[in-house]
């Protein structure tokens, strides 16, 4: 097969960021599918006047705390991108470390809440959907935390510099997508119940 050797584009778009944006879109569409099913089933339940979640099962405080924590992580993630683009290694360590820590905190709180809720997965359609959606989001967040920690290790090795900024920018897109998904969970499930 022939290999065409042509001059590269003058300003080639950043491949890693493009790939991460496409990957994030794929993840968001996965959640869009889950949300569509959740809201459709809930609308049907409301229309028939049947119970969706038992009274008091869904509490606002844990969901609200998670939303606040993830909102903070948006700031620390932006801080990390800024630090790496400025070759500021100390701030990059802090920002990436804090973002990972906040991610772990959200996962920890979610696991505690799911154990505390007192409803099994197979209690009703609503709980099946709740556990699936929240569990899938925890997985998404877990992947983000691992990616974050890998970049932190690279930063310790001096590899996260302005020349390699794309890696952190790519992670930031993925992370922001994760926070956006959680904001729907927070509003659609925890607040609107």
């Amino acid at each position: 097969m022939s290999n065409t050797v042509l001059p590269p584009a003058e300003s080639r778009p950043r491949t890693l960021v493009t790939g991460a944006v496409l990957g994030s879109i794929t993840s968001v569409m996965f959640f869009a599918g889950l949300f569509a099913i959740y809201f459709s089933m809930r609308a049907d339940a409301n229309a028939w006047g049947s119970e969706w979640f038992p009274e008091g099962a869904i509490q606002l405080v844990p969901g609200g705390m998670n939303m606040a924590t993830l909102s903070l992580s948006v700031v620390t993630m932006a801080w990390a991108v800024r630090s790496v683009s400025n070759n500021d290694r100390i701030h990059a360590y802090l920002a990436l470390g804090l973002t990972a820590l906040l991610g772990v905190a959200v996962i920890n709180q979610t696991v505690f809440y799911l154990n505390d809720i007192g409803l099994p997965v197979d209690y009703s359609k609503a709980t099946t959907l709740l556990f699936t959606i929240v569990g899938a989001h925890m997985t998404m967040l877990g992947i983000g935390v691992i990616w974050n920690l890998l970049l932190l290790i690279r930063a310790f090795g001096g590899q996260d510099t302005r020349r390699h900024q794309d890696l952190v920018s790519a992670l930031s897109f993925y992370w922001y997508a994760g926070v956006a998904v959680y904001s729907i969970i927070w509003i659609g499930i925890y607040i609107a119940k």
Partner: protein
Amino acid sequence: MTTTDIAPDSVAVTSEQNQTFVERLVTNTSNSSIGKSWIFSGCIYFLLSTVLGFLLDIVRFDSDSYLIFSNVDKFFQFWSLHRTSIVLLAVVPMIIGLAMCVVPPQIGANSIIFPRAAAFGFWVWFLGSGITVFGFLADGGFGSPELDSQREAVALTLVGLLLVIAGICVSVICLLTTIISGRCMGMNLRRIPVFSWTIMVSGTLWILTLPVLAANSIIAYVDLRGRSAIYFGSEDVIWDQISWVFTHPQIYVFVLPLIGIAYDIVPVAVKVRQKLYNHDLVLIFSSLFGIIGFGAYAQPFFDTPGTPVREEALYVLTAFLAVPLALLLFGGLFETLRMGSKNLTRHPPAPLILSLLSIFLLISGAVVGALRAIEPFELLSTSSNTAQMKLTIGAGLVAIIAAMLWWGGLIVGKTAKQGFGLISGILITAGSLLSGLADSVNGFLGLDDFTTVGFLQEVSAEQIVKILIAFSFIGSVLILGGAVALILVELLRFKNGPVSELDPWEGHTLEWTDEIVMVESERPLLDEVGKTGT
């Protein structure tokens, strides 16, 4: 800091040369090798799917022979496996394989971007496809109407499907990134060859819709795994939740690249240059065709009572829009053919004929889809579904054969026997038409999409239905013959095919040259001819 470049490790080079075939296959990250792996696997699954389709049509033809599948539940499992495999294990993989091989050189990229991820995508899909098929064979599949399947095997099939989706999405992301970020200088989006453009559009729609299918699957899996299912994982409803992927409008999205294949082949085959405004219109129409194929919203299983999604304006409108769009695209090809008719010989190239046939099948599929959407006909759950799928997927398969005959020399390095390839494509076209039209008319006569044996025995009393089922069966035989012919063509190419020329068709786009070409239009090689006056 000092950076020292060291010479390549001679031991490593030697060990690379000593790799076995399997080691090379697994560790290879060249876009050509990954593409060939996709195409080869897709061909095998295509053959298996057509054999399965043939067996299913035997049962429809002679309802007493349902014992081939031992019972009705098994019959249902293999019926759903046929639909799943022909789309997600045959057509889509073969298109991805073609794209892996053709798109990077066509847009002036040296290779696919993220080659390791592309290889990972293939192997994840390959593993998932094996698990899916094994799940069906282990009495799982996507459940069964009489709840007679093995729950653990159903869960296994769902895991396989999730892996298949993941593999396709990863590979498509690599392709899309290559098209968006890997184009050479001068190759702006308007100048992308139509095949690469349609891969971009369909790839985008695949990553927008297949994750929704993954969402359906994972809810069923969570509900099914390890306990009594509440609702989503109940074995008699799993297929209902995922079947939207294999019907209108989503089915169009899987075969969208056939428009690109036809528009890259026809102008070169008749040796004319399309005018630029035509090129722009083709880009717009093919994108519109892709957009109307977005089917993630059309899930009848989650219908709100009283407002079925398949009776909503959007669903009906897209069904009707598909027909004029397909006709407009055919019109564009027809105009190109008319312009270049003086350049056609008595024996036009096989890919040209097959490209036109594939667009014709697409139009037929779109017409059946539009008829299905007319509410008073009550065709939505009849064999019209099967008809539309056969015609549309048949269009995709014929286009893939055309593409293999056209770009096969570039991909494999050897030339195939065009006559055998043409026969294979004509057999599939004839089979799809015969089977599709028979099933379509049977839809009007009330034959269900999935026909249980009892129902078959009942409707078979009607002579006309029985005759049409016989036609559908003959169509399946022809499709099977086409699949076997395709495999033979490719085997002969590998074994005895003569080494292909670099540019046997005098192509217009970058994949046909290994020289440095400045891209100043959508057909850069014609620009060079214009400049040199040769």
